[in-house]
């Protein structure tokens, strides 16, 4: 049997090209018609949404679902901190001038936090090697009243805006002392476990999930390594009681409220010894 001429590739191919295109494009248009026009309009009608709004919602141009009215919330937002991390704020932080910061530190901060950021008193935190973003947030929170302290509130309010990143940059650039890992052996295993694994029984996440040498948690997370022991314990107690409340989403208030006094003491010792 001789091969019929119609089996030439070109002739063979024509119906393929046509019908494949019709099928694929047809299914596509059917989907578009159904998903963007018909379903939203029908769903919107029963939810009291006009056709135009429903279509815009189906496309994502307007927020919400075409099938449900958008809930309206009357509660005013009350953020615990006014600091917003925008690219502009990060740029301001990155442009902090350590020389100007040094001058300001010698003028204002030196008495309590030391020129190199080493606090002379157990009541005040060390600031050497602290994250610039953490210092920036705390100073701003003092200015806006999100965090209060008899000394710091007034001092922070007296600073002008451009000075804050300078001070933050200066202290962030001061070196940490050498950690003293020799004392790790004295720490109870339960504390090390709390730092590394948390306590799932009590819904306590590991401290190390956020507090790490680099970033772990949100950008404003402070570095705890080599922090003053008494200061750390005091802050944890203030979070636990709700006296301090500038932690976003109440993360630290929730965690600190679950810690026992012995754990607060142990964790403060852990971090003051320089462990990360």
């Amino acid at each position: 049997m001789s091969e019929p001429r119609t089996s030439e590739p070109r002739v063979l191919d024509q119906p393929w090209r046509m019908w494949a295109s019709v099928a694929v494009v047809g299914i596509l248009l059917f989907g578009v018609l159904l998903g963007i026009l018909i379903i939203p309009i029908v769903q919107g009608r029963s939810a009291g949404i006009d056709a135009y709004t429903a279509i815009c919602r189906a496309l994502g141009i307007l927020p919400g679902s075409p099938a449900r009215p958008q809930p309206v919330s009357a509660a005013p937002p009350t953020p615990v901190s006014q600091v917003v991390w925008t690219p502009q704020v990060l740029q301001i932080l990155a442009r902090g001038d350590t020389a100007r910061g040094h001058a300001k530190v010698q003028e204002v901060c030196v008495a309590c936090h030391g020129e190199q950021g080493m606090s002379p008193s157990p009541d005040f935190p060390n600031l050497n090697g602290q994250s610039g973003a953490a210092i920036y947030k705390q100073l701003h929170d003092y200015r806006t009243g999100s965090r209060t302290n008899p000394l710091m509130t007034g001092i922070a309010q007296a600073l002008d805006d451009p000075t804050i990143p300078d001070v933050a940059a200066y202290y962030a650039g001061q070196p940490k002392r050498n950690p003293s890992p020799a004392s790790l052996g004295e720490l109870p295993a339960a504390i090390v476990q709390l730092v590394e694994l948390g306590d799932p029984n009590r819904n306590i996440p590991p401290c190390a999930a956020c507090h790490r040498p680099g970033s772990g948690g949100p950008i404003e997370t402070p570095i705890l390594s080599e922090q003053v022991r008494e200061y750390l314990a005091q802050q944890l107690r203030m979070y636990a009681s709700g006296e301090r409340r500038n932690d976003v989403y109440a993360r630290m208030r929730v965690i600190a409220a679950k810690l026992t006094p012995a754990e607060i003491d142990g964790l403060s010792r852990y971090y003051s010894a320089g462990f990360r």
Partner: protein
Amino acid sequence: MRNVERLCLAHFWVAFAAFLVAALLGTWQMWVRSPLGANIGTPGQYFLSVTAHGVSMAYVLTTFFIMGFGYFVAVTALARPLPGKAWAWGAWWVGVIGVVMAVVTILTGQASVLYTFYPPLTGSPWFYVGLVLVVVASWVWCVLMLVAMTAWKRENPGRPVPLAMFATVANAVLWLWTTVGLAVELLFQVIPAAFGLVQTVDVGLARTLFSWTLHSIVYFWLIPAYTAFYTMVPRAAGGRLYSDTMGRLTFVLLLLYSLPVGLHHLLMDPEHGNGTKFLQVLLTGFVTVPSWLTIFTVWASLEIAGRLRGGRGLFGWIAALPWERPMVLATGFAFIMLGFGGFGGIINMAYGMNAMVHNTAWVTAHFHLIFGGSAVIMYFAIAYQIWPRLTGREYASLAPLRLQLSLWFIGMMVMTLPWHWLGLQGQWRRVANFNYADPLIAGWGPWVIVSLAGGLTLLASALLFVGNLLALHRSAAIAVARPLYALAVDPPQRVPAALNGFGLWNVLVLVLMLIAYGWPLAQFAIEPSPTAIVHRVQ
């Protein structure tokens, strides 16, 4: 030819070395998350391990295996030398350098970002650069596959491209389309962020670009298995392929419908409207069609083989099949796992049902069953089938091969069926540990232990697999080169150009992608969303 065999073996051994390491890590992960190993290891170690496991299994095993298999098919199915052998070796080196970069950054804890690319979390830039190098190596492979097919067509005008090569080139074309989304995300968003060149990243855009790659990449991994179903299985079973056209149609449909569907991975995401999600879910429905075609065609081919071997009656042909042959046995296992995994997948793609299993162990179970199960067991079978060709040696006995495949099947079922069940109970994924003291979670414990038993079985099977291949390298017997690829019942003399190349299908993929992804991507340019601060793992 020796050189091509060395090239293939070099690819396969990189793939299987990564596989063995990943199997060890996977078992360790299951152990520390089970009640038996609770509180062993830190979350940091767990996520480091998951990253290494995922990168090894999903990127190294797959990419290197597929490249090696592609070179093998190009030489054996087309019966002509591989063009650009130097390029192929160059690509292998680039890929290996990329793998080393990724491994070093993972092991030093600088890249514990799992193996997905979801900013604002970013790891070391060298981790991403390493993975880009692996992708670049695979692009060289894609070009070589296209060049090989084009050269063959020029030498054989009007003749149909052998199905095995048609499938391989379909995969190469699919991979070129697939990697566009990931490449754009990595090169323009993630790598600049990881290097610190930018401080913020548009998370919605990144997730959308990753979704472009995220579904079709699975079909890139699966197509070698389908290639074996159509071309090697009927031959191994002693029969013929029921329909060559059905095979071509399957690979074309996989190319068309695995791409414009990735948004079903973002059904719970807020950055896209319901309408665009609906469209992609509808198209996702069509990606099941090539699987149905395959089940029908391969089943029919096996029935031909069973009846040729004297099988009678409605089901008698099944018993008559040569199940003692690894390729046939693996196919039986793969079909069972494809069945369970496929139905699970249909649940994932449905908006309402997905909401219930979203981010639970169900999802982990689904992709382990489909990829780790169906695809990887066929990788084993393919390796077993072609290793005698590559080494010039013959297995002393097929029994260890059958044992290994059986252990893999049993292990995968025992591991993933409890995961599905746990997912339905709400067990979340991507966490380092569970608190079994919680009464709600305590009930999960026994099922987690059962799945750990599955994991241990899989580890035993993985060790045996590598042992079987190593044993063959030392075996003395010389193999008789047997034909690899099945003839069709009705071998095609001429096929329409549409089923002999990818020009038409590329145009249709473009149309589908423009409509399915055009608006979802354009909206980020029209109305830029608030960006997130880059979060770097250090």
